[in-house]
């Protein structure tokens, strides 16, 4: 009765290990395949959604920061809904960056290993080892940049994970065995409190999606149906913004009370 989130520096490895762990544990799978469902549910262009999961916003890419945040929030909300079902192996949705503070979630990072991974890619693609190394370094740098921009976390920081396994010397089968063994540990078992925390995060994510559709600079925290939204606004717009937030958030399923905290938006006021 737990959730396993697997992240890796190589997408193929992430998927392979996640599939094997899910099979061994009899858990359901939650991978990047759900992005198509997210796009359909929130009426987003699937290509743009995929792009948002890989790149940061830029003027040249026709993806504004607000749009990007909204797309990421849509994915988050959907992931939380699935995670509430429990007994799940999740990968490829950056969940290791935003699912935080839930005791029955085990976060694992699997590293493809420098020598083994590089050689396999070089053989598959028929290119030299140096080229592969350069390409991988670029990809890793891009992922790091993305994780910092999206969630202010460096995904290569090992303190973010319960377990990090490097496949350079350890066989994938051995890694699967270690992961499945670890999840049996009692601290990863579901408790009423951890489930409640997850429900609160899921509700925050749902409110976040609703609000980010029409505004930016939003921070949402939910607890047992009560929602606190922090935002910025100029003195002139303060009342209007509070009313809008209360109306939009109040219509979200599961919200019983909305409180809005507004900070002065100095930039807007000066303008």
């Amino acid at each position, binding site marked *: 009765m737990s959730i396993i989130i697997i992240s890796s520096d190589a997408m193929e490895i992430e998927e392979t290990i996640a599939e094997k762990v899910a099979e061994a544990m009899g858990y359901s799978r939650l991978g990047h395949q759900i992005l198509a469902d997210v796009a359909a549910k929130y009426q987003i262009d699937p290509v743009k959604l995929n792009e948002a999961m890989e790149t940061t916003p830029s003027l040249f890419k026709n993806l504004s920061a607000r749009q990007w945040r909204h797309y990421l929030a849509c994915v988050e909300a959907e992931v939380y809904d699935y995670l509430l079902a429990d007994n799940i192996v999740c990968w490829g949705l950056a969940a290791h960056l935003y699912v935080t503070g839930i005791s029955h979630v085990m976060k694992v990072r699997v*590293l493809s290993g420098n020598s083994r991974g590089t050689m396999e890619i070089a053989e598959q693609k028929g290119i030299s080892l140096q080229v592969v190394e350069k390409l991988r370094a670029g990809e890793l740098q891009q992922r790091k940049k993305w994780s910092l921009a999206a969630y202010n976390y460096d995904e290569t920081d*090992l*303190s973010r994970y319960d*377990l*990090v396994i*490097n496949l350079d010397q350890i066989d994938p089968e051995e890694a699967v065995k270690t992961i499945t*063994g*670890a999840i049996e*540990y009692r601290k990863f078992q579901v408790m009423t409190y951890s489930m409640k925390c997850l429900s609160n995060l899921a509700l925050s994510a749902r409110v976040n999606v609703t609000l980010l559709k029409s505004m930016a600079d939003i921070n949402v925290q939910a607890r047992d149906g009560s929602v606190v939204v922090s935002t910025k606004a100029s003195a002139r717009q303060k009342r209007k913004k509070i009313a809008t937030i209360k109306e939009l958030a109040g219509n979200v399923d599961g919200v019983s009370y909305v409180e809005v905290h507004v900070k002065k938006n100095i930039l807007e006021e000066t303008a």
Partner: protein
Amino acid sequence: MSIITISRGSYSMGKAVAMQVAQRLNYRLISREVLLDASSHFHVPEIKLIKAIHDAPGILERYRHNKQSYVAYIRSVLVERVVDDNVVYHGLAGHLLLKGIPQVLKVRINADLERRVAVVMERDKISASDARILIQEDDKQRRKWTRSLYGQDPWDTSLYDLSICIHKLSIENAVDYICQAADTRRFQSTEKNIQKVKDMSVACRVKADLVDEFPNIGVTCEYGNVLIYMKGKDQVTGKLTKKLNLIRENTSGIYHLETHAGVEPPPDAV
């Protein structure tokens, strides 16, 4: 039959994990002995060696190469100690000092900051904020040290085979996983691997003997054949020749010794 290095942040329960692993596998446990050996063998006070592998080099030290020498001494002693295999090392920088030995299982133990703060508060009887500052300063020094000497971040996941966070996972769980991993095929000593450690031990010994006067050399060893790489062509002096003759006489395991001047050391050189 393998070598396990356990690296950890300060107050992260790494020592407790290392002790239990050594006990369960019936391996030798080494840590501070390496510094004591290096101190007596190379006639350097232990405190200087501790500083060398703990604090990052200052601006002047980068030019004096003292730290580089001390690290070479420590590495030489450590590699010599692991030649016999079946060892758990839980001192500083084991994963970097034993780099290049295939049967080394490199483990990192982390603990969440709040738990570390609690340990320091209890031990030193100080406030939470002071404890936090102490730990953060210590982590900062470790980062600077690894970056300045090896160009890598100690928090970089790719430096380790296994990294375990002691928070939800307990010390016993960590011991289980380490023993399980050490038992796998790739960490078992083979004849080839054992020879590699012996060669590395010779190379490290030669480097330690030369590093004081020739800080920029690189040394490799293959089946007792030692190659010394020097960047400048004019550096092969009478002083070096004399020193090499002494090394040849005093170091066991050297069959042949050769210098390559004006050649960049290969990446696996120590």
